[in-house]
C-alpha cells in the first residue's frame, strides 16, 4: 500500500484494483507547487484523486470549486496548465494527461489561489448573472466596453493562460492513405479492424488514449470464453504485427471532412519529456485519406441535473468504476449511486468488491430487475426507487460533499419526504450518449432513439459506417456482431472483394433492463429558486439559464446555445448536450427530436497550434528561392528584400554605410563606371514552333512576328480587360524560337497565361511553351565601361558597337561558358544582359567581378536598379500598375499596335471607359523643394485646400536621384499628360507639399547613353 488516503490496497477488487499502475515505482509531481506522488500508469487525474485532491479548478463564470467528474476526453472540469515556461500548455484534461516524474500542473481560472478565489463572489451575486448577461449588461454605455468591461471580463473569465514564449518543441505532419480507417480502439473498433484486416484491407485504427480497449474492461462478460481484456490484448497484438495495419495510440481523430479525409492528432511525446529531448516531435498531425471509415467512437455517460450537482465528489458512475479498477483509487469512502439505468449497478458492484461503502443506490425508475440488480441486492445494499437527489449538503465554500438529500420524484409540486444520507462520493448515471460527433462532421443526420433517450446515427452521404456504442449498440455480443460485419463490409466496399463474411466472436454479457430518461430533479424550496442544476460544467450553464432563454423567446436550439453559451466550451458539450435538449423540450412542451440538436464541428478535442503548423516554421515557414548567385550575395554582405519567394539583394552596404548611402554609391558606380546585377529571377519562357510569332502577336500589345532573328523588342501584356499586367523584352533566338522575359513575380503566371490562351482559344497554332526561368543564371553588366569588361573576357563574341548593337541578341561563349547575351538596358546605360546555364552562373559571375575590378565594377542591388529606371522614366509593374492601369494611361501608346487585327485586351482598351480623357495618366513630379522625397502612395490634390479637395491622383514611385541630386517621383494624375508644368499639392500630415508635373523621363531624354 502506498499510504495515500484514497489508494486502495492491491488486494482489493479480488487483487485487480489498479491493474494499469506499477506500484513498485513512485513518481513525484507538483500540483500548484505542492509535491505529490503517483505511480507509472497513473493519469494526473487518478494521481490527484489518490492524494485526496478534491477541488481541481474553479468554474468559468461563478468560480465555483470543481472536482473531476470523468475519466477520459469528456472531462469538463479538470483542466490544467501543464509544464513550465515556454513549455507550459493550458487547458489539458487531467484525465488524459499521463503522469511522468517531474510533471508540474497548475490549476486554472482562480485568483489569487484555488483555495480562496475572489471571483467566487460572482456566485453570491449569481442572480445578477443570468443567461445572456453579457449581452444584456455590457451594451451600455458603449464607451465602457473597451476600457472597463472587456478588461475586467478578460481577467475574471477565460480558461488557462497562454504561454508567453515561443514554443521550443517541434511538430510534424504526415500524409497517409488507407482502405479502412477505424476510429476508436475499443472493443468495437478492434473487432472491426480485425475483420477489415482479415479481408485484406489496409487499415488504420486510432484511439485517443494511450491504452486500447475503451471501457470494455469495466463492463464484465466474456469474449470467446475469456476475459474481454485478454481477447482485446491478443487481437490488438495481431493488428500491430500486421504490416498492412497501422495501430495508433494517443491519436485523436479530431475531424472528418468531405470524401473521407480525416485529421488526427497524435500526442507523440506529451507523456514523456525524454522523447522530446531525443528529438521527437511533440505532436504529429495525421492527414488521412481513407476509402471507408468505420466509426467506433463509443459513448459518453450523461450526468444528472440536480441541485448543486457540480459539488466536488459528484462524478460519473463509470468514471468512478474506472478509477477503482484501473488505478486502485477510490474518490470517496462512502458512496451514493444515483441512476436511471442498470449500468450504474456495475459501479456498485465494483465499489463493494473493492471494500468501499455504498450507502445507497437511488434509482429514478419505479423498479429494476435483472442480474446486475440482483447481484447488488445480494450485497445487502439499500435501494431507493422512484427518487432523486433534491439537494446537496456541501462543505464550507462548496469544496466538498457531506451528504445528499433524497426525495421521491414527482412530476410537479414541492419536494417532500426528504431523507439525508451522509456520503463523500456520488456516482451519477443519466444514461449514455453515443459519441456521434464525427458522424455529424460531414452530412450525417441523426435519429432520436427513445430507448436510449439520445441521438443515434441516422443517414450519411459519406462512405462511413458506425458500429458499437457509437451506434447505440451497448450489449457486448451485439457490438461484436455489428463491428465484425461493419469492418468486413467496409473492407469489401474499399477494395472490391473481401471473401466470405467472418463470424463474430462469441460473447456473453449481463443483460440490462430499460433506462428511463430524467432531465431534471426538483430541489427543495419554492420553484427551485437559487439552486443550480448544472448542465454545462465547463461554461457554467444551468437548467435555469436554458429555461430563461426559452422564456425570453429563443426557440431554435442553435440560438439557445449561443445565448446561454451552452456547449460552446472546449469540450463542446460532450456531457451537457442531451440534458440541455431535454430541458428545452420540456420548456417548449415538444419532443427532443422536434428540438433537434446543435451542429457538431471539428475538432473533437482541441488541437495544438503547433500541430496545425507542422514543419512550416523557421527555415520552412515558407519556401525561399535561391538564385545561382545567392551564396556569393551571402558572403558579400547583401541586404535583402523579398521579391515573391526570392530574397534579392536590395544593396550591398559596405562596413559603415547605411542602406541609403550604399544605394547612392551603387547608382553612381553604374552611371560613371560599371555595375553588375543578379537578374536570374527574371522570368524566361521559350515559345517555339512555326506559329510562335503569330501567337506572341496575339499575346502582346505590339507586333512580335516582325522581329528579326537576333533582335530584341520591349513588349506589354494586357489582360482581357485591357489592363497592363506584365512587361519585358522578347528576343528572337531563331526563326521559330522566341525567348520571352517576364518580371520576376509574374514568371509562373505568364507561362500559365500563355498556356491558357493557347489551349483554350488558339489550340491550332503550332507551338510549344516551355518555361526556362530556372535553367539560366542571368546578370546585367551596365555602365559606360560594360563593353570593356566583357571584352576583357575570353569570348567568341564581338562586343563592339557596330557588331553588337542596342537591342541585339547573340549566343556564344564567355570564358568557355555558353552564354546568351542581350544588349538591353533598364538603367539607360550601355548594358548587356548575360545568361548562362544556372550551374555556370556563380563562376561566371566571379569571372566578371574579377575582370571588372580594374574598371571599378561594383555589384548593385534592386534599389539602385529602381532608382535608375525611374531616372529614365521606365515604368515598373506593381508600382505604376495595380490592375486598373492601361498601357495608354502610362503613355505607352507607341507599344500598342493599331494595325493588328486582334490581341488580348484590344477590344477592352477601345471601350469608352478606358478611352476617357480624364483617366489618371503617368507623369513625372518634381517637388519644389528638391531635397524632399515624397512618401510613396501619397494623394495629390488640385488647389491648396486639403479638407475640401478630391484626390486627383497619387504618387506611384518616389526616390532620391543621386544622378540628378534631387528628388524625383512618378504619379498617376487625372489628365496628367495635358497638365505639364502645372503645380499640384500633396497633403502630408498637416502641411501641403507642392510639386510640378513634368515629363517622366528625368535623365538622358534622347537615350544617348545606352546607344554608345
Amino acid at each position: 500500500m502506498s499510504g495515500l488516503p484514497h489508494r486502495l490496497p492491491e488486494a482489493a477488487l479480488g487483487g485487480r484494483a489498479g491493474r494499469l499502475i506499477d506500484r513498485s515505482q513512485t513518481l513525484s509531481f507538483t500540483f500548484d507547487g505542492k509535491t505529490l506522488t503517483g505511480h507509472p500508469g497513473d493519469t494526473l487525474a487518478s494521481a490527484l484523486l489518490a492524494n485526496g485532491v478534491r477541488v481541481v479548478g474553479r468554474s468559468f463564470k461563478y468560480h465555483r470549486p470543481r472536482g473531476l467528474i470523468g475519466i477520459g476526453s469528456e472531462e469538463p472540469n479538470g483542466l490544467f496548465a501543464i509544464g513550465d515556461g515556454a513549455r507550459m500548455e493550458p487547458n489539458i484534461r487531467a484525465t488524459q494527461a499521463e503522469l511522468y516524474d517531474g510533471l508540474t500542473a497548475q490549476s486554472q481560472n482562480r485568483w489569487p489561489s484555488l483555495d480562496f478565489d475572489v471571483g467566487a463572489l460572482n456566485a453570491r451575486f449569481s442572480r445578477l448573472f443570468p443567461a445572456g448577461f453579457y449581452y444584456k449588461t455590457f451594451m451600455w454605455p458603449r464607451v465602457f466596453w473597451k476600457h472597463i468591461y472587456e478588461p475586467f471580463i478578460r481577467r475574471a473569465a477565460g480558461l488557462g493562460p497562454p504561454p508567453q514564449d515561443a514554443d521550443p518543441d517541434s511538430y510534424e505532419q504526415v500524409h497517409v492513405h488507407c482502405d479502412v480507417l477505424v476510429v476508436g480502439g475499443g472493443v468495437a473498433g478492434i473487432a472491426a479492424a480485425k475483420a477489415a484486416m482479415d479481408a485484406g484491407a489496409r487499415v488504420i485504427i486510432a484511439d485517443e488514449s494511450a491504452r486500447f480497449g475503451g471501457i470494455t474492461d469495466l463492463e464484465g462478460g466474456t469474449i470467446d470464453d475469456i476475459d474481454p481484456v485478454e481477447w482485446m490484448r491478443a487481437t490488438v497484438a495481431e493488428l500491430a504485427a500486421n504490416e498492412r495495419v497501422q495501430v495508433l495510440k494517443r491519436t485523436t481523430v479530431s475531424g472528418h471532412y468531405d470524401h473521407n479525409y480525416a485529421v488526427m492528432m497524435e500526442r507523440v511525446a506529451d507523456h514523456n519529456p525524454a522523447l522530446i529531448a531525443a528529438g521527437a516531435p511533440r505532436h504529429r498531425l495525421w492527414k488521412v485519406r481513407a476509402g471507408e471509415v468505420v466509426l467506433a467512437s463509443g459513448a459518453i455517460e450523461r450526468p444528472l441535473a440536480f441541485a448543486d450537482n457540480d459539488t466536488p465528489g459528484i462524478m460519473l458512475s463509470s468514471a468512478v468504476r474506472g478509477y477503482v479498477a484501473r488505478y486502485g483509487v477510490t474518490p470517496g469512502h462512502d458512496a451514493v449511486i444515483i441512476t436511471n439505468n442498470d449500468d450504474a449497478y456495475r459501479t456498485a458492484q465494483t465499489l463493494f468488491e473493492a471494500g468501499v461503502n455504498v450507502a445507497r443506490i437511488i434509482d429514478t425508475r419505479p423498479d429494476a430487475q435483472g442480474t446486475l440488480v440482483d447481484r447488488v441486492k445480494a450485497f445487502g445494499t439499500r435501494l431507493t426507487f422512484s427518487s432523486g437527489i433534491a439537494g446537496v449538503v456541501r462543505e464550507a465554500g462548496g469544496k466538498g460533499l457531506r451528504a445528499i438529500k433524497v426525495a421521491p420524484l414527482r412530476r410537479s409540486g414541492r419536494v417532500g419526504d426528504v431523507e439525508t444520507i451522509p456520503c463523500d462520493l456520488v456516482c451519477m448515471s443519466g444514461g449514455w450518449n453515443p459519441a456521434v460527433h464525427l458522424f455529424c462532421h460531414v452530412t450525417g443526420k441523426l435519429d432520436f432513439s427513445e430507448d436510449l433517450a439520445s441521438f443515434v446515427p441516422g443517414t450519411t452521404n459519406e462512405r462511413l459506417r458506425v458500429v458499437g456504442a457509437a451506434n447505440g449498440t451497448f450489449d457486448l455480443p451485439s457490438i461484436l456482431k455489428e463491428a465484425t460485419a461493419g469492418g468486413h463490409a467496409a473492407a469489401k466496399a474499399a477494395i472490391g472483394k473481401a471473401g466470405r463474411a467472418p463470424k463474430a466472436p462469441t460473447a456473453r454479457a449481463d443483460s440490462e433492463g430499460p433506462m428511463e430518461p430524467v432531465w431534471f430533479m426538483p430541489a427543495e424550496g419554492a420553484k427551485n429558486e437559487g439552486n443550480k442544476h448544472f448542465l454545462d460544467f465547463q461554461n457554467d450553464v444551468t437548467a435555469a439559464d436554458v429555461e430563461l432563454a426559452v422564456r425570453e423567446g429563443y426557440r431554435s436550439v442553435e440560438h439557445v446555445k449561443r445565448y446561454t453559451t451552452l456547449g460552446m466550451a472546449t469540450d463542446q458539450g460532450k456531457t451537457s448536450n442531451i440534458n440541455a435538449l431535454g430541458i428545452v423540450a420540456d420548456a417548449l412542451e415538444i419532443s427532443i427530436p422536434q428540438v433537434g440538436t446543435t451542429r457538431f464541428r471539428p475538432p473533437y478535442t482541441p488541437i495544438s497550434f503547433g500541430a496545425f503548423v507542422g514543419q512550416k516554421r523557421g527555415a520552412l515557414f515558407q519556401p525561399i528561392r535561391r538564385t545561382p548567385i545567392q551564396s556569393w550575395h551571402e558572403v558579400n554582405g547583401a541586404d535583402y528584400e523579398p521579391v515573391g519567394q526570392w530574397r534579392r539583394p536590395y544593396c550591398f552596404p559596405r562596413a559603415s554605410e547605411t542602406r541609403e548611402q550604399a544605394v547612392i554609391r551603387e547608382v553612381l558606380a553604374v552611371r560613371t563606371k560599371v555595375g553588375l546585377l543578379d537578374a536570374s529571377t527574371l522570368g524566361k519562357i521559350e515559345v517555339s514552333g512555326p506559329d510562335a510569332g503569330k501567337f506572341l502577336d496575339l499575346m502582346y500589345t505590339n507586333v512580335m512576328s516582325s522581329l528579326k532573328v537576333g533582335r530584341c523588342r520591349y513588349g506589354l501584356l494586357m489582360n482581357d480587360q485591357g489592363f497592363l499586367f506584365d512587361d519585358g523584352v522578347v528576343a528572337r533566338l531563331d526563326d521559330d524560337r522566341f525567348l520571352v522575359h517576364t518580371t520576376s513575380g509574374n514568371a509562373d503566371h505568364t507561362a500559365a497565361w500563355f498556356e491558357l490562351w493557347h489551349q483554350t482559344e488558339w489550340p491550332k497554332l503550332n507551338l510549344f511553351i516551355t518555361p526556362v526561368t530556372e535553367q539560366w543564371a542571368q546578370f546585367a553588366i551596365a555602365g559606360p565601361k560594360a563593353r570593356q569588361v566583357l571584352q576583357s573576357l575570353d569570348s567568341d563574341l564581338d562586343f563592339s558597337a557596330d557588331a553588337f548593337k542596342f537591342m541585339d541578341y547573340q549566343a556564344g561563349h564567355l570564358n568557355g561558358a555558353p552564354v546568351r547575351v542581350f544588349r538591353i538596358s533598364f538603367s539607360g546605360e550601355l548594358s548587356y544582359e548575360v545568361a548562362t546555364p544556372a550551374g555556370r552562373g556563380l563562376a561566371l559571375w566571379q569571372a566578371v567581378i574579377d575582370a571588372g575590378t580594374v574598371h571599378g565594377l561594383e555589384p548593385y542591388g534592386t534599389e539602385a536598379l529602381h532608382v535608375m529606371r525611374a531616372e529614365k522614366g521606365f515604368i515598373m509593374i506593381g508600382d505604376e500598375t495595380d490592375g486598373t492601369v492601361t498601357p495608354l494611361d502610362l503613355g505607352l501608346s507607341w507599344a500598342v499596335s493599331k494595325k493588328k487585327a486582334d490581341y488580348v485586351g484590344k477590344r477592352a482598351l477601345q471601350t469608352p471607359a478606358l478611352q476617357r480623357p480624364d483617366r489618371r495618366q503617368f507623369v513625372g513630379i518634381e517637388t519644389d523643394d528638391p531635397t524632399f522625397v515624397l512618401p510613396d502612395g501619397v494623394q495629390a490634390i488640385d488647389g491648396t485646400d486639403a479638407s475640401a479637395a478630391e484626390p486627383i491622383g497619387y504618387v506611384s514611385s518616389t526616390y532620391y536621384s543621386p544622378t540628378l541630386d534631387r528628388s524625383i517621383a512618378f504619379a498617376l494624375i487625372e489628365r496628367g499628360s495635358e497638365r505639364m508644368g502645372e503645380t499640384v499639392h500633396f497633403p502630408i500630415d498637416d502641411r501641403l507639399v507642392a510639386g510640378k508635373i513634368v515629363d517622366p523621363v528625368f535623365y538622358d531624354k534622347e537615350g544617348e547613353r545606352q546607344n554608345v
Partner: protein
Amino acid sequence: MSDIAWTGPLAHRDPAASDALDIEIADRSDISVLDLRIGSKDTKARAAASKVLGFDLPTDPRSSASASDVAAYWFSIDQWLIIAPREGLVALEQALAEALGSHRHALTDVSDMRAILRVQGESCRAVLSKCIPIDMYADEIAPGYVRRVTLGEIAAAMICVADDPDVFDLLVFRSYADYAMTWLEEAADAGRSLSLFRPDTPPAV
C-alpha cells in the same frame, strides 16, 4: 582564361551527418535533362524520337522507359523528360533534333533547371509521407513510376528508381533545392523516426 566551373544547387550546404538521418540523400543534379514536347497524337514524331532513344517513348501516364543510361519520363500527354549523363548529351540532343526536324516538336536543354535528389533506405516511404500527400504505399509506386507531386509547399516530381530497398529520385526546381533539402532532412531526422505500416509493438489494453 580559366574555364567556368559548374556549381551544384546545394554546393552551399554542409551535408547532414550520416547517422543523423533515417535515409541517405544524395545530390545528383549533375545529370542532364532534356525537355521534349511532341503533339499527343503525333505518332510519327514519337516514332522518330523513339528510334534515336532506342526505346519507345512511354505514353501511359506516370510511366517511364529506359535503355542503358538514358531514360524518358512521361510528364504529360505531350511532354517527356529525357534524363541522361552529361557526357554524350550534345550528341543525343543533336540526334533528336535531326530526327524530329520536320515534325512539330520542342526540344530544350534544361539540365540546370532542376535539382535531383536521390533518397534511399528502408524508411524512404515513411519519410516521403511527411513530404508528399500521395499514397506512398500504393502498389503502383514501383520502379519506373513517375509522378508530379507537391513536396512541402513546392512543385516536385518523384521517380521510383528501385524498391527493396527503396530508391527514389526527387526533382525540384533549382531555386527550391535548399528548401527541399531542409524539409527532407527534417522529415528524415533520426530522432523523428516514424514506423509506418510495419509490425509494431501493440499498445496496452
